[in-house]
Each structure stands twice: as structure tokens, then as C-alpha cells.
């Protein structure tokens, strides 16, 4: 170990300057010793014999001359069994344990271990002495809740290693030695169930990255049918405040068809995290029948917690996601909100007196955002299994204007865009994903042409609506008016979804298909409607029955009766279908 020492020479907001002797590494973690507390910090610039560090805590009370301790490590997370169901802050401190020790408040300088050291796990070895191992290879497993948690050769064990010995099946703690490996030069190293990995480096122990193709079902109709997300893909949800970004993410975190969900609450409201962490343990996951919390990890760095750890929190989250991906699992990472993370970068850039880019964001904003989203992906692992990390990030554009730097940088790198609009949320049309602005490059659960066909009604309806604003209802032909009503109908009964209704909140792909077929039967039909009043009245009646249907459980009477009413209402107007409509309906069957 080199002889290192350092002292604080300047303090400005959450940045301290350190005068040091010896060698210092960029992004090295250091501790400022102030009033008996150790304040975690990260070196973000080195210049001559002075280094600047961002402090992950409130800097009040730091004095010139305070001693600094060097850790010789980059900011890392602990990886191993015991992460599932946990609630961490941005630096992977377990919040429940901090609450137990310190009460109501998050005092500075308190760091606890992320993984329990006392818990015993029942380990079963899989690799045998003499086996050749590469990083990421499985040497054994432990059951973690209902998952088989693979114990892997740490990701920084480059090259080939030979397993020298391994413990028999039994109960071990995460720090117990479970095996020894030797490299070609005969260097022997001990293996434990846990190891650490620097958060800002992507885990790259896989054979190849594949194209995301398989849809990740969210049970939200407008997403699954119109703007799907694929496993291993990326998507973003920009929207002005109050448009429902967070509610949409909460709904997705409950219903998404993945193995593990990681929620990174980054610089947002504490109250929203609380809802998740109090409610998830009570809700059962329909896939497994176990509590939803058992498949969830929360990384929570809310807006009033120190800014620097906000920046770290998204990396902590994605690193844990990659770790579980290495076990062949599908992981969904929801980051709310990436704008707050970008703002944290901006604050620090300002303190460093870097030359600002647009809206004072640093010039490297785009490349940092791109690098983050690129950590998503579906990969083939060495053992032939597949794992994926899907990333969905909300963006909170200033003034709701999508032209701002963070939204633009994000749009360049994601595969789907769910743009929320103030106009729709004001009219209580939830989820407020704008059907004409949004897009997705991924395949969904319905045939593409049929979706495009349905979407064309929305486009034409909005054209007619715009025209009507100029020429008035009386200047619009009945044919156009019906087109307008069809678009409105599709919007009201299919795009909009009530996330607080027990049935409507989550709609299975099968039910979506049935409903979509039914909606298409109405959209595609030439109908015998007398005049505009007749048309409007008829569509409203249909909408009424359809909304009843949306709220009805499939095994109930209301479901059958509403379905019957809809069929009768439709039949009464003698629907006839052109060749395109017939074709589309056929494709859905």
C-alpha cells in the first residue's frame, strides 16, 4: 500500500478540495473525517496535488484541515444472495436497518453493510475440483426466496481459473470461504458467496448480445398493443408534472412479466416510494403467488437526500440488475426520474466550473445517458441460457417541453417512446400516453398491420377533429363525423385504462386480444347511422357498455351481459365490412 494522506483545503457546497500526498485514483472513494463522522466521497477531478471530491452527505460542519482517508477502491456494490426484497439508498445502505439503529432521520456518516453477514444460506456446489472456470461461471447455488441464486466466479476474475477445492453442501454465510481457484501461474484465490463490483462499469460476462424481440407484457393496453416494450429493450416516459409518469411506472412494476423488478427512485418524492414499500409486501404476484416484494429491489434516493448519491443510485440499480441477468433472469429496471440524475450531474459540473452546455448541463450529458441505457440488453450467457435487463426511465422535462437536452439525449438511445401529454392528463385521459406522438420499434403482442390499421383511425379522427374546429360540426360530413367518433371511441374504451379499478388495472394479453378484436369489429364496420346526433348517441351507448365490460371480471355475470349488450347494439346497426376490415379481423384470429 502506498503511503497516502490528505486534508481538506476548501469546501463549496457538496464539493470538497483535498490536498494530498501519494497517488490518488479517479473515482476513488475517500472518507472525510469530520467531527467523529466518516463522510463518504468520490474523487471527481485531480489537479496537481489537489483533488476535488463530491461528498455523498451534507457538508455542514466540515473544517479546513479535516483529515481524509483513502479507500483505494471505486464506488462499488456488494453482490450476493440477500439483495431481493431489500430497500437501499443510492449507496446501497439498507434503509430498514438504518431506521432500526438511528430512528426517524438519515444522519450523515452512517454506512451499513448491504448484505446480511449473519444470515446463513444453504449452498449446493455445482462445479467440481479441476473444472476450468471463467468469470461469471456458476460454481454452485443457494435458494433465495423462490429463485435459484447462482453463485458465480466474480466478474473481475479475468482469464482461466481452475477450481482447487469447494465446500460440500451446507449452510454458509456470505463471507465464508466456499472454494479456492488457481490461475495458470498458480496464484490461488479464495471465493465467497459475495463479491463487489464497481457500479460505473457494465458487467460484460456474456457470449453475445441479441436483438430484443420478445414483448415484455405490462398489462397496460396502450403499451402492449400500440407501443410495446421488448425484454432487453429500453424505453422512456417523458412528461410534464402531473401527467402520471410515476403512476404508470408503479403499475408497470406490479404487472410486468419479468422475474425481478428493480425500482430506482432517483430524486423524486419520498411519499411515492413509501407507497411501494408498504404496499408491495401485501400484494401477491400473480406469476408466483408470492408477495410482490420478493421479486423487487428498491433503490431509493429521494429528492431531499444528498445530491451526489442520487447520481450513484441509478448505477447501483443497473449493476444489481446486471448481476441477476447473469443468472439467466429477466430483470426490469425502472428509473424515476433520469432528469434528476442529469441535474445532479449538472450541479456537480457547475461546482467544478466546467464550461456549460445547453441549459447548463455538462457537455458529456449525452454520452453518459447513452452509456446508461446501453447497459440494457438481452444476452446469451456462457451456459446457453438467456438473461435480460430492460430499462424504463422517466424524464421530467423542464416546462414539459420535449426539446430540452435530457429528453433529446434519451430519445436518441431508446427503443420506445411513451410521451405523456398535459392535454390528455388535464382531460383525465389516463394513461396519458399520447397516441400520435409516441412510438415503439419493438414487436408487440398483436400483428403490426392490424395495430397500424387501428392507429390510422386515431390519426384520421384527430384530423377530422382539427378540421371541425375550423369548419364546425355542421360543416363536417356524416362520414367524417363517424370517423371522428370511432377514434374517440377507441381512445375512450381501449387506450384509456383505469389503474385504480381492480379489473381494469391489469389486462392480460389474452383479454387484450379479445377486446381488440371487438373494438376492431366496431371500427372496421360501415354502420347504418342516420345523422350526427344519432351517431353520437349510438357511440355513447356503446362506450357505456364497453366501460362496464372493462370493469367486469371475466367470470362474472356483468362480463357476459355487457358483451351481449355490445353485440346487440352493434347488430342493430347492420354492420358491413369491407375487404380491408375483413382481412384485419382475420389476422387477429
Amino acid at each position: 500500500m502506498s503511503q497516502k494522506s490528505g486534508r481538506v483545503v476548501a469546501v463549496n457546497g457538496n464539493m470538497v478540495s483535498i490536498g494530498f500526498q501519494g497517488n490518488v485514483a479517479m473515482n476513488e472513494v475517500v472518507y472525510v473525517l469530520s467531527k467523529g463522522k466518516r463522510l463518504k466521497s468520490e474523487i471527481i477531478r485531480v489537479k496537481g496535488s489537489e483533488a476535488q471530491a463530491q461528498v455523498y452527505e451534507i457538508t455542514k460542519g466540515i473544517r479546513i484541515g479535516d483529515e481524509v482517508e483513502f479507500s483505494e477502491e471505486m464506488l462499488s456494490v456488494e453482490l450476493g444472495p440477500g439483495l431481493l426484497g431489500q430497500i437501499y439508498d443510492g449507496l446501497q445502505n439498507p434503509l430498514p436497518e438504518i431506521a432500526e439503529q438511528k430512528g426517524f432521520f438519515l444522519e450523515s456518516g452512517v454506512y451499513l453493510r448491504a448484505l446480511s453477514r449473519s444470515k446463513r444460506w444453504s449452498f449446493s456446489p455445482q462445479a467440481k475440483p479441476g473444472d476450468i472456470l471463467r468469470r461469471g461461471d456458476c460454481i454452485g447455488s443457494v435458494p433465495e426466496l423462490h429463485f435459484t441464486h447462482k453463485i458465480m466466479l466474480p466478474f473481475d476474475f479475468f482469464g482461466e481459473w481452475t477450481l482447487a477445492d469447494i465446500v460440500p453442501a451446507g449452510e454458509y454465510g456470505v463471507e465464508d470461504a466456499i472454494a479456492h481457484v488457481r490461475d495458470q501461474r498458480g496464484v490461488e484465490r479464495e471465493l465467497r458467496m459475495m463479491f463487489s463490483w464497481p457500479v460505473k462499469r457494465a458487467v460484460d460476462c456474456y457470449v453475445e448480445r441479441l436483438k430484443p424481440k420478445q414483448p415484455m407484457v405490462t398489462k397496460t393496453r396502450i403499451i402492449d398493443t400500440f407501443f410495446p416494450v421488448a425484454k432487453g429493450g429500453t424505453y422512456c416516459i417523458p412528461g410534464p408534472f402531473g401527467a402520471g409518469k410515476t403512476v404508470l411506472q408503479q403499475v408497470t412494476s406490479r404487472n410486468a412479466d419479468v422475474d425481478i423488478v428493480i425500482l430506482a427512485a432517483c430524486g423524486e418524492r419520498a411519499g411515492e416510494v413509501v407507497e411501494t414499500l408498504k404496499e408491495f409486501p401485501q400484494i401477491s404476484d400473480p406469476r408466483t403467488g408470492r408477495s410482490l416484494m420478493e421479486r423487487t429491489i428498491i433503490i431509493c434516493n429521494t429528492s431531499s437526500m444528498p445530491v451526489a448519491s442520487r447520481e450513484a443510485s441509478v448505477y447501483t440499480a443497473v449493476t444489481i440488475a446486471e448481476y441477476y441477468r447473469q443468472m439467466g433472469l429477466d430483470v426490469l429496471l425502472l428509473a424515476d426520474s433520469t432528469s434528476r440524475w442529469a441535474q445532479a450531474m449538472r450541479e456537480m459540473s457547475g461546482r467544478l466550473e466546467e464550461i456549460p452546455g445547453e441549459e447548463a448541463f455538462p457537455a458529456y450529458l449525452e454520452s453518459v445517458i447513452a452509456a446508461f441505457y446501453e447497459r440494457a440488453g438481452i444476452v446469451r450467457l456462457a451456459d446457453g441460457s438467456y438473461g435480460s435487463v430492460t430499462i424504463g426511465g422517466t424524464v421530467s422535462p423542464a416546462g414539459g417541453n420535449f426539446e430540452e437536452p435530457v429528453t433529446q439525449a434519451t430519445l436518441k438511445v431508446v427503443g420506445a417512446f411513451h410521451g405523456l401529454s398535459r392535454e390528455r392528463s388535464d382531460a383525465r385521459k389516463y394513461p396519458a400516453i399520447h397516441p400520435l406522438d409516441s412510438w415503439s420499434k419493438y414487436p408487440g403482442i398483436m400483428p403490426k398491420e392490424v395495430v397500424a390499421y387501428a392507429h390510422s383511425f386515431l390519426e384520421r379522427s384527430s384530423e377530422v377533429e382539427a378540421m371541425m374546429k375550423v369548419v364546425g360540426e355542421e360543416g363536417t360530413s356524416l362520414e367524417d363525423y363517424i370517423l371522428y367518433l370511432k377514434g374517440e371511441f377507441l381512445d375512450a374504451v381501449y387506450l384509456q385504462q383505469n389503474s385504480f379499478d381492480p379489473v381494469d388495472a391489469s389486462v392480460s394479453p389474452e383479454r387484450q386480444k379479445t377486446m381488440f378484436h371487438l373494438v376492431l369489429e366496431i371500427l372496421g364496420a360501415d354502420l347504418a347511422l342516420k345523422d350526427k346526433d344519432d351517431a353520437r348517441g349510438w357511440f355513447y351507448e356503446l362506450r357505456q357498455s364497453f366501460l362496464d365490460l372493462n370493469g367486469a371480471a371475466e367470470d362474472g355475470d356483468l362480463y357476459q351481459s355487457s358483451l351481449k349488450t355490445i353485440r346487440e347494439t352493434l347488430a342493430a346497426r347492420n354492420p358491413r365490412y369491407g375487404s380491408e376490415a375483413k382481412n384485419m379481423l382475420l389476422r387477429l384470429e
Partner: protein
Amino acid sequence: MNKLYSHIESIVGNVISVRAEGVAYGELAEVTSRYGVSLAETIRLDKELVYLQVFAGSRGISTGDEVRFLGHPMQVSFSDNLLGRIFDGAGSPRDGGPGLTDNLIAIGGPSVNPYKRIIPREMIRTGIPMIDLFNTLVKSQKLPIFSVSGEPYNQLLARIAMQAEVDLIILGGMGLKYDDYLFFKDSLEEGGSLAKTIMFVHTAADPVVECLQVPDLALAVAERFALKGRNVLVLLTDMTNFADALKEISITQEQVPSNRGYPGDLYSQLASRYEKAVDFDGAGSITTLAVTTMPGDDVTHPIPDNTGYITEGQFYLHGGRIEPFGSLSRLKQLVNGKTREDHRAIMDGMIKLFSSYRDTLEKKSMGFQMSAWDRKLLKYGELFESKMMDLSVNISLEKALDEGWKILASCFEPRETGLRSELIQKFWPKGMVQTEAAAG
């Protein structure tokens, strides 16, 4: 320990610097000049230079004035003696009463562990249908009132303060006009609430640095009372002045501005104050209502914009009424499922129809012919505005719901409302006949 320094190195804006040793970041000092003694806070350390922000401003400060460090950060006294008292932004009495120095507590403390928060479950009734019915206020919520100068936002704030059932009211006034300060004092006195009120008031005539302290003082005191089991309502008016003070100070410190001159950390600064709103598990709570006047009535201005992302909704006060569009209580879903079964349906249904009414109004203003449906909407909109939106309406939630059904029934056929059939069967007023607006 309390060493005296008698040479000021630089004076820039309200920031002075002295050469001193052993000073902690955030430490408080006293600056004595020929115009009196002022507090100052350490805002930057650079080698042996200490930069201090002078609360009373730097006007008249001489390079030869004395600076004495106090060895502690900004503090405020906390005890029941605070009740009924009025202080300024430096924590000194404004009401002529004695200064308080017992049981000093630090301000701007650490944030609450999210794990120790609980999900808000209790509604705060205000008697205002636009709040109770459409955007319910919830205990421990943080909500701003977005408004423009000239709107009766302080009147609304005072009315909510007096009608809401809370143990304690703490008013933080920032850049208040003196008249408004007197208005609050008088109306709380008349309403008999002064004894359960504590006021920290910075008026427009006071030094700008003191403006920054007001929310921290108010919230530090609120937090302690909440920990003792009290339900506290904190009123902050006007947060725009607070943000403008931040801007003024960051610009004089030569920080790179991010958006329209505001500092890049505006979001974090506002968030650390608003996030003090909390419901403590096993103790009291803090509910925060704050006024944000929107410069130029522009909601995309950085102050309302950043605020909207932090708070749990917002009320738009416009033309003396709370606007249904844009106004939102994010926590309402936590409580409005337990009030009455028709609450949510009426809330959504009426707003959807009101939105159609606004479209019709637009069509009408452009001179288009009104259809029968349009005429129904016009009638509905007028009734909604007078019976629901008018701020003089003061009725309970249940009465407001009944009123809602009455309005609907007098304008529409049941199927036109988009409400579910089972609710219509139960609540649709019997024997109500549409006074056919379409006839005209």
C-alpha cells in the same frame, strides 16, 4: 474559541470574506458594523479564506468591521413559548416580545428515512368542493397554490388554515407585503387561531438573505412539534420570493445559471424544504401548503415547473377560482376510495364533461352553430362554475357529491355522463326531469 477577526478581505454582494482558522462549513458569525450587529453564515471555505453571507446585507459594512464566529450553525429556539409569537427571518422577535434562547435546535436538518414514513391515510376537510371533492387534501401532503399576483391566494390560504382541523399552524412569510402580513395576523386573530399559530415573517422590506432562512426556521420548528405528536400545518407564502432570493445570491456568487438565471440546484433546494412534509410513524405530521406566484402566469417558468415536480399536486388559483384543469392532488386516491362509493366516479365524470364544455365554449366563441349536445354542455358548465367552483361555496364533501348528481341530472341523460350503470341506478336523482336546454 470565539475569536474576533477585524479585517474583512472582500465584500461582494452580500458575501464578505475573512481570513480565519478552524471555521466549520455552515457556521454562524456575528458581524458588527456601525449600523448594528448582523448574523452571517459560512457558505464557502477556500484555504484560509472564509466566505460569509451577511443576513442584514453588506450595505455599510467596512473592511475594518469585526467578525466573531459563534461555533454553531443557525439555530432556533423550540418550546411551547413559541405559540402565538411572531419572528423575523433571523429568528428575532417581530412582535415586541422577549427573544427566546432556550432549547436551541439546528435548522435544515437531515431528511427523514423513507422507511420510517407511513402512507398518508387521512383526508383534511376544507369545505371547498374544488378541494374536498375534486382534489382532496391529505394529511402530510405538500401542495402549492399556483397563482398570479393579484389573485386572492393569501385569502385562500388563511381560509384553509382556519377551517382545517390541525393542532398547530406555522406561517412562513417570504417577501410578504406588510399589508399581507397584517392581513394574516388579523384574520388568524379574528378566527381565534392566533394562539395556536407561530409566524416567521420576512417582509419585502427586510434583507434578502433572511428570506432564505424562513422556510428552514418554520420547518425545523414544525418538525419538532410533529415529533411530539402534533399535527402541524405549515403555510409558506410566497415561495417565488424564496427562489428569487436564491437566484439573486447565486448570481452574486458567480455560479453558472441553468435556466433563466436560476441556479442549477433550484430543484434540490426546493425539494429539501417541501420534503419535510411527513407523517411520522407513531408521532405527528407536517402538511405544507405553499403559494407559488407564477411570473407572467407561465407554468413552465422554472419556479412553478420545478415545484410541480416536487409537490404532490397543485391547485391553480385563477380568476378567483380553483381551476379544475391542471389542479391535482396526487394523494387523493389514498383517501377518496373510503369516503363515498360515488366520489371517484363523480370526480372524474364531472371533470370530463367540464372539459367538453370548455371545447364547446371555444366553438361557440368562434361563432359555430350549437348542437343540442352543445347546449346541454353549456348549461352544465354554467351550473358547475356557480355551484362547485365558486370559492364562496362552503359545503361538506357529501353535500357536494349530492349537488354533483343534481347538476348532472338536470343537464344530461344518464348514458351521456359516461358513468357506470350501477352508480347511476343508485345515485341518479329520481324524478329529476331535464329542463330541456335543447328546446331553445
